[in-house]
């Protein structure tokens, strides 16, 4: 298929460029809006590229003084939930996502090892974990709210960490399982001939071999946790706040959505996720298909 005439190649490249523009445009608009001053947020005609770029939106995100200043200048008021600094949201999201990722990957590695090497629970057992990923989280949210209310777990770090761990376990188990399966059993066998227990053979021989895969799994799950919205929305009540909640909360009672501020918060909060995404780009396909499709 290399003898395409020049115009076919030209059309193909043009189509690729169009796809690139469509893929990038909403992100461009988000970033562009984050630098717009207040009067250009929703003006008509819309401002495609601001002529007066400002960092005010970013300052409102991080400095409560800037938020107060803005509120007085617009005779409006910020929602009480976001009148403080967004640092709290970043801190909470970092704590929750990190611990949930650690638990998920640790538990997932142990379970995956047990499933691959001991065939624990038989053929159907791993599918039980997949079921969790198939059911809409909203379906279990009502009983989780009921359960957490008597366990006093709602609006705590631990409650969200628990929920995130459970809902990412299918990914960690299936992904790590696919990595362990790629390591020949003979390697562990050789170590055991030298007197190691099977579990130590796993820890000292197999685990170092798949550590790249486990790290990719961890980053992948961190992305999922950092981006999660529904559980954060229903299981918190102000004490704990995640970045996604903070983004959704930038609404003012008097002037509606605070486009610029929301865009600034959106841009910053999504940056780490994009970075991690490209780091594990090679493994994204494996992750999102539960290890079914490998590169």
């Amino acid at each position: 298929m290399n003898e395409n005439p020049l115009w076919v190649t030209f059309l193909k490249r043009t189509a690729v460029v169009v796809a690139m523009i469509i893929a990038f445009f909403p992100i461009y608009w988000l970033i562009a809006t984050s630098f717009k001053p207040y009067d250009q947020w929703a003006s008509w005609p819309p401002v495609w590229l601001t002529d007066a770029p400002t960092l005010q939106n970013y300052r409102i995100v991080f400095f409560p003084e800037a938020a107060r200043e803005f509120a007085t200048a617009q005779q409006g008021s910020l929602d009480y939930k976001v009148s403080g600094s967004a640092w709290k949201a970043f801190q909470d999201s970092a704590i929750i996502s990190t611990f949930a990722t650690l638990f998920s990957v640790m538990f997932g590695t142990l379970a995956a090892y047990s499933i691959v090497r001991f065939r624990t629970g038989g053929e159907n057992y791993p599918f039980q974990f997949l079921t969790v990923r198939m059911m809409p989280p909203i379906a279990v949210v009502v009983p989780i709210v009921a359960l957490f209310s008597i366990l006093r777990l709602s609006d705590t770090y631990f409650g969200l960490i628990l929920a995130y761990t459970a809902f990412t376990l299918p990914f960690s188990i299936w992904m790590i399982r696919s990595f362990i399966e790629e390591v020949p059993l003979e390697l562990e066998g050789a170590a055991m001939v030298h007197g190691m227990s099977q579990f130590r053979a796993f820890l000292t021989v197999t685990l170092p071999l798949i550590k790249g895969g486990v790290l990719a799994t961890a980053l992948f799950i961190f992305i999922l946790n950092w981006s999660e919205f529904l559980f954060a929305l229903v299981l918190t009540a102000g004490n704990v706040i995640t970045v996604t909640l903070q983004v959704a909360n930038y609404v003012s009672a008097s002037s509606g959505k605070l486009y610029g501020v929301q865009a600034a918060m959106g841009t910053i909060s999504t940056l780490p996720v994009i970075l991690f995404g490209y780091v594990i780009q090679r493994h994204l396909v494996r992750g999102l298909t539960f290890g079914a499709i490998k590169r």
Partner: protein
Amino acid sequence: MTTQDVDGPLTSAGRGWSRYLPRFNIMLVLPAQLTMMAVVIVPTLIILWLAITDWQPTQAIAWFKAEPIWFWNFYDLWYDSRFTNAVLRTLFVVAVCVSVELGLALGLALLFLDEWPWRRVAVSVIILPMMIIPVDAANAFFMLFNERGPLNHLISLVIGVPYEFSWLSHPTWAMAPIMLAEIWQWTPLMFLLVLTGLMNLPQNQVRAAIVLGASPARIFFKIMLPLLLPVISIALLIRSIETFKIFDPVYILTRGQPGGATETISMFMYNGAFVYFRMGYIAAAALLVLVVVISICLALARPMKRHG
């Protein structure tokens, strides 16, 4: 799916702790299993109870002491057009989004078969949408489809008169931005899957067909597509499941408004439970959804295993 290529566990009775292996392997899955039970299995049991009550948190009665009303919730659900509409709407969204994603992904992937200098850069830019936090993506679409957004501006420039249609508050059209946001965000995943599949195709058959003078279209439909089928079916399955759960873009763009015209199942249940506080009623809806989803899972588990 890969098959287990292990010749049975390496166990030899009598060597140290290996005598306790049956217990040891259970211990390894225990942390994962217990977490699952705390967050999934116990709540599922609670749903069974809540679904037959009329519990509302505003009544200040603990949920476990609520008055059972038996099967009235299900009766009400059956005649609740808002619920049935949400179900139908969700199925519609899944069907449209997933097939559009697949079509676009196939078309795009075909553009990437040969090598050219900035190919890797192009792939990286095209997969950018799937890296974005869904809430942020939805916010971007909220701005794009605003009455005073760039989309209406473009339309105005084309038709020559100011066009300020408010997409998000129109009962019929409000669904479009939601679905476009979903398609924009997840076509890249489908594209990556199809591209991976295409790159892994055995080249011999394609080359043989070229030598024999088959047309590109014929090669695509007769050779490539059948070979891609396993990848495509996994991609369709996973995207259908994920799209069925659609919540973030709906919440950010419309919250189910106007008048429930954009409520998907997840949005309907969120509104019912956390706006109208009808927890028992929503638990009944959740139970229905869970029963359907779990039976689909069981039905799918069999062919997926056979598929290896």
